[in-house]
């Protein structure tokens, strides 16, 4: 065999990181939450998640193949992530065909319309969720199915919204461990945090977005809580961080690469924006939960954040 000389511009080696590996890590990080959710809510969780993932992947493949007529992009696993996140944003009792519609909106409108991975301005899974929330409000807020010892058909967030004094009667350990009403992925704060630590360790995400979102929410809760009883308590801030989609949104949805800012400074502003809008909607808006809308609104602000918040140029003050 003869020697063949290769040539290319530098660098000649690569770190070995791959888009599909990053997406795989996100899916892996979501597994503890899926496991606890399945344990608490039953096998239907797996069924809904499987439907969501399968339809997301299928729609992406179909759109690539027949509408865009280009090489399929399902191998990057981003459709799988969208599918899992979409499922995590749904109540367990939702009919399967609504999930399919959600997947179609998420992939078809939220992602592929804009050119696919990397070019979508809004988080696809959130696009799907928000569409379903508006189109099927009853199915999307029916929390009765699945939970064996469910007290009522409402989530803690809506309970507290109309009776803030109840906050001191909550058992935070239940919220932490998984005994809480809500969407499939919101069940256990602990599982979500474990996944988040895994993502931080694998350098898939940085701390900036989750910490700024949760920090803003806590600060907001602290100030508002003080106006209720006149004393500063940990209860309201802690409640808001643990309840609803706060952790799911802060760790997994808001950190979506293409819809979040590119610089650390930008990420912090983006996170503060999401935290503040979430709390405003939760406390004074019509919906009990505001996370998805807050992320959606800040997604829209991402291009302008990227434009004005550039990284610190070496050698400048």
């Amino acid at each position: 065999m003869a020697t063949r000389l290769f040539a290319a511009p530098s660098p000649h080696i690569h770190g070995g990181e791959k888009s599909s590996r990053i997406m795989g890590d996100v899916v892996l990080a979501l597994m503890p939450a899926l496991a606890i959710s399945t344990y608490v809510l039953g096998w239907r969780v797996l069924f809904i998640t499987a439907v969501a993932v399968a339809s997301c992947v299928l729609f992406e493949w179909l759109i690539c193949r027949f509408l865009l007529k280009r090489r399929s992009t399902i191998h990057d696993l981003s459709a799988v992530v969208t599918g899992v996140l979409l499922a995590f944003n749904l109540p367990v009792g939702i009919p399967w065909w609504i999930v399919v519609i959600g997947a179609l909106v998420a992939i078809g409108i939220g992602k592929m319309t804009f050119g696919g991975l990397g070019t979508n301005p809004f988080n696809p899974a959130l696009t799907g969720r928000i569409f379903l929330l508006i189109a099927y409000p009853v199915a999307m807020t029916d929390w009765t199915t699945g939970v064996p010892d469910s007290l009522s058909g409402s989530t803690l967030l809506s309970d507290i919204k109309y009776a803030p004094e109840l906050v001191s009667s909550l058992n935070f350990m239940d919220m932490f461990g998984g005994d809480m009403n809500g969407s499939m992925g919101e069940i256990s704060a602990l599982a979500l945090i474990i996944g988040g630590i895994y993502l931080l360790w694998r350098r898939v995400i940085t701390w900036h977005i989750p910490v700024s979102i949760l920090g803003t929410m806590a600060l907001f809760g602290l100030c508002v809580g003080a106006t209720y009883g006149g004393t500063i308590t940990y209860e309201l801030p802690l409640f808001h961080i643990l309840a609803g989609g706060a952790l799911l949104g802060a760790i997994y949805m808001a950190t979506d690469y293409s819809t979040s800012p590119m610089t650390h400074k930008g990420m912090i502003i983006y996170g503060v924006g999401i935290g503040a809008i979430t709390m405003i909607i939760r406390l004074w808006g019509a919906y009990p939960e505001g996370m998805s809308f807050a992320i959606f609104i800040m997604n829209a602000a991402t291009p302008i954040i990227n434009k004005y918040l550039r990284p610190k140029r070496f050698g400048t003050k």
Partner: protein
Amino acid sequence: MNTLVLTVLTLGVLGILLAVILYFVAQKFHVEEDPRIDDVEKMLPGANCGGCGFAGCRAMADALVTRDNISSLFCPVAGGETMKSIAGFLGKTAPDKEPMVATMRCGGTCQKRPKVNHYDGTLNCAVVNTFYVGESACAFGCIGYGDCVDACKFGALHLNTETGLVEVDPDKCTACGACVKACPKGLFELRKKWPKNRAIYVACRSKNRGAVVMKACKAGCIGCGKCAKVCAFDAITIDNNLAYIDPDKCKLCRKCYNECPTGAIRLENMEPLAKEPKVANTPASDVVAK
């Protein structure tokens, strides 16, 4: 009923108010513009190729209308006829220019210019040019990743995968000069366009000595000077081991073509001079067959 009236009223008043504001803003920011600019822009091809030196057709139209002397302005895409009609419309004198065509001056096909290394970076000529000479041993030849093809707005260029070289379709070429700028090796030249797309030119840019050229490419100009000697019109000059045929002096007599030992002189859409039988079967056939 009351609600209805109130709604209509509010919206009506709001509409009128906004219309008034809009009117005054439009008045304040109105820019007086020569209406002929619009007309001239319509007469221009609208390719926005930048071949005239301006950012686009609008800028060119603006220059044509506002400048007194337009002899230095020329749209290569529209050509002399259109320029004359624009000048007539504006009451100015049009520049007189011959039609031109882009010419790619490299004959180093894959067969004649073998690869000596394998490039595995971004398939872009400018990227290659940032760090080395390219896959062949010739530092002057076509890199073959088609920066010029991408730059051409008229689809006049295409990459022949068999030869690895870019070819010009003279019927589509408008001589806008985009390829001249895009080629990092400077292989393109805008040359006089003969009737029936006839052309004769030296398809090589190598300034290396003959021996070096021959080692790298079998189709290169070795600077032997035979063509210059035979030319009756002083159209051929040899500079830096490289022959150049001046298109303004050349009369397409084709004598040089038969003299060239390497076939670096290229003839297009013409039969070579049938002089001596032994040179009649030179690469002429494959040139014409194209």
